[in-house]
């Protein structure tokens, strides 16, 4: 079985959405997939914060993100919550970066334990990545 590893460095709504869509795509087409959340990406693993995120461009203090969510709903695009549930249902793995948790001031208690399969550091990412045919950085 082939394998894909994606580093989710950004916590922006559009980028996390991209990571989840691509992750689900690879799972649906037969890969094993690991998402490695680090830096701002970690904020999206905090309890109830998956879609409480700014846009990478034209956020306008949250107005842009609000408009994007409205447009996505109108277009019938799946929410980050649904995509995350699908990702887990298809066997996707999530690793939270332990080192950057400290840097970002995020304790384990603040993170949604249901989402995270493992806590790791760069060595775990490298190990996963070396076993992968593809690795992406988002």
């Amino acid at each position, binding site marked *: 079985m082939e394998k894909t590893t994606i580093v989710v460095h950004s916590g922006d709504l559009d980028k996390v959405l991209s990571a989840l*869509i691509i992750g*689900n*795509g690879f*799972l*649906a*087409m*037969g890969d094993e997939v690991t998402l490695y959340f680090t830096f701002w990406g970690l904020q999206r693993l905090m309890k109830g914060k998956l879609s409480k995120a700014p846009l990478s461009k034209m956020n306008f203090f949250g107005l842009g993100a609000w408009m994007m969510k409205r447009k996505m709903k109108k*277009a*019938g*695009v*799946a929410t980050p919550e*649904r*995509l995350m549930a*699908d990702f887990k*249902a*298809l066997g996707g793995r999530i690793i939270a970066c332990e080192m950057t948790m400290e840097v970002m001031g995020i304790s384990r208690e603040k993170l949604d334990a249901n989402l995270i399969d493992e806590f790791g550091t760069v060595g775990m990412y490298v190990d996963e990545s070396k076993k992968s045919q593809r690795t992406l950085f988002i």
Partner: protein
Amino acid sequence: MVESILPNIIVDVLGETCPIPLVEMRKAVMKAQEGQIIEVKGDHGPSKLEIPLAVKSLGLKLLHVREDGDGVWHIFIEK
């Protein structure tokens, strides 16, 4: 001949957009037993193209793709 394909599992993704039809197809494949037939029914145009790609990638058999006049497509897959 085509009319005689009787699916064991029907996946209704009408109104859903990328990547949900692909994801729901995969869930159905995971549930299905060897030899069972899955029908995926949807209306998101690009998904009609990507599901056969996934079928190939997963090593499954694409039995038939049918499109109705109203943009609704049916994809028959054998596990």
